């Protein structure tokens, strides 16, 4: 049998993204190929910064939250020194996980297999029947492996398993001011994550969700049903929504970050924040005590902020994208309270969240339906390339180095794939 030569692009997955002067194209192997997926886990998720948890989920010493970095199980753990450690969830003895719960509190992590025990910072503190090891057995060499990089930014905890990633500050800088404005909707500048997230799986590639969260192009079509619901409720006419959807912009940034932005405003007609300020005067005065009107206008802009590769910051939720296989993904929506606002304001946010998001919402499931339509469609071959060039001819680069496009342009998706290409070209 004649050996079939490997296609040229397989030696460098970066070639699966074609960043031309007039066309930006994606080879659809990026959604269907197991080897590409494995390379993504290794070269993206397990080599660069990823979001792992929020500090309000591990407020006290001994608190922990388990999660994954790429395909690797980790524990986000707060030690008695008050520091957050991100530890590979693997006993150094024979490899079992040492923690199986989602969220909890424990004075130590004990392996279920042979009772090796670890402190909350991962140090090995003891083994069962320790006389089976020599007196000079060096426990300090057999602690749980910590992530080399851990950084908390205003409560958002990021970790990095790679040794060669940019510093957190360098990596986060392009998107930082938008995250600040997102957090500053709380007069205290902080949020508290609710205990139970909405979670939905879908039988499709993780990048469908990554591309869609800041896509301003699909709303009038995928969410026409939602527009009818709003119209019936007397909240907005479909015509008004469609006009609104042409306002604002998209932004693409270095390191793959990006966002979709709708303009803000201080009056009730202009923004959600404006409506809340009108409804709750104490909220308005708390914001005014900390920020200028210009700053409040920025704070009130509605943004879907993507922090490459696995995090979206939405008005009601921290959204985490968890890739499982090339055609299996789980999305977790961690709804949060804005700290320092009236309880009724947060309750209204929870009810608004349930209305649109989650497995029974009037919006999220329509998006998921598209993800599975895509996953079916890209099996058709002989076409191979998907087109991501919408708005290339009209986007501009601003003084911060951001590409700024029309609200329906694929500007942030191109930023995502430029970073993908960079990391997958090594």
């Amino acid at each position, binding site marked *: 049998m004649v050996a079939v030569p490997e296609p040229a692009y397989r030696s460098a997955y970066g070639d699966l993204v074609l960043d031309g002067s007039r066309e930006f194209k994606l080879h659809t192997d990026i959604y269907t190929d197991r080897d590409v997926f494995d390379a993504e886990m290794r070269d993206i998720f397990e080599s660069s910064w990823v979001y792992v948890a929020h500090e309000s989920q591990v407020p006290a010493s001994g608190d922990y939250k388990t999660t994954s970095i790429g395909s690797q199980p980790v524990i986000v753990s707060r030690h008695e020194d008050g520091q957050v450690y991100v530890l590979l969830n693997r006993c150094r003895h024979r490899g079992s996980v040492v923690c199986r719960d989602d969220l909890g509190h424990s004075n130590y992590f004990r392996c279920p297999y042979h009772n090796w025990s670890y402190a909350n910072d991962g140090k090995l503190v003891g083994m069962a029947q320790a006389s089976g090891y020599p007196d000079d057995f060096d426990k300090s060499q057999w602690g749980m492996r910590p992530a080399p990089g851990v950084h908390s930014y205003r409560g958002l905890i990021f970790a990095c398993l790679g040794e060669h990633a940019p510093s957190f500050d360098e990596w986060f800088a392009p998107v930082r001011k938008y995250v600040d404005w997102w957090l500053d909707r709380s007069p205290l500048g902080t949020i508290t994550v*609710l*205990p*139970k997230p*909405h*979670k*939905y*799986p*879908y*039988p*499709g590639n993780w990048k469908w969700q990554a591309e869609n969260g800041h896509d301003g192009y699909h709303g009038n079509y*995928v969410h*026409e*049903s939602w527009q*009818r*619901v709003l119209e*019936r*409720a007397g909240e907005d006419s479909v015509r008004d929504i469609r006009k609104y959807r042409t306002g604002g912009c998209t932004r693409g940034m270095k390191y793959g970050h990006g966002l979709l932005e709708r303009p803000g405003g201080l009056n009730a007609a202009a923004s959600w924040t404006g409506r809340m300020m009108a409804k709750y005067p104490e909220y308005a005065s708390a914001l005014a005590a900390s920020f200028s009107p210009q700053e409040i206008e920025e704070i009130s802009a509605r943004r879907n902020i993507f922090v490459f590769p696995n995090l979206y910051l939405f008005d009601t939720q921290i959204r985490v994208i968890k890739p499982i296989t090339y*055609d299996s993904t*789980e999305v977790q929506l961690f*709804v949060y309270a804005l700290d320092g606002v009236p*309880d009724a304001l*947060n*309750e209204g946010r*929870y*009810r608004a*969240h*349930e*209305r649109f998001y*989650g*497995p*029974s919402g*009037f919006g999220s*499931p*329509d998006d*998921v*339906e*598209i993800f*599975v*339509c895509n*996953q*079916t469609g890209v*099996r058709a071959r002989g076409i191979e390339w998907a087109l991501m060039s919408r708005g290339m001819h009209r986007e501009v680069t601003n003084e911060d180095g951001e590409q700024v496009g029309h609200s329906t342009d694929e500007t942030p998706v191109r930023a995502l794939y430029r970073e993908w290409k960079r990391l997958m070209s090594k």
Partner: protein
Amino acid sequence: MTTVDRTHTLDRATAEALIYREARLLDTLQLEEWLTLFTEDGLYWLPMEDGDIADAATTISIVYDDTDRRAERVFRTLHTPVLDQNPRSRTMHMVNNVELEGTDEHGDAKVLCNQIIGENRPGGDGQVGLNGTRVLLARCDYRLRATDSGWRISMKKLLLLNADQPIYNLTFLL
């Protein structure tokens, strides 16, 4: 509004007949008629974990539908171009382990049961996400109230066995 006859006690056969009828309306997509089974202040609730109604103020639920939101959900399902119910789900409710548990603090009759809900979305050959049949399991807590037009549901709380786990498309009525 005439006085509700609080002395009218619910018997098991009446409770079962109401829940079976509800199941049939859901399974045959007679959702506008399903809406009429609820009282004016009725709640249709799928929490993320077991708890009291008061908890809903400080947590999120999968569904927390008062009368307006229920009507909105039915409108959306039947009369708008939904993608997530196109094709529509076929469902089959099985009602088991029915127990009458007296009355609650509002004087409403408490009826507990378990439900097995089968769901299938038919589609073309090889369409990802379609054609499989799922089985959902739920513990249900109904509160029923005697009204002039018969027994009505003042609350339907449906706690899925996997309520806090990842759940794919749950856009049909449960």
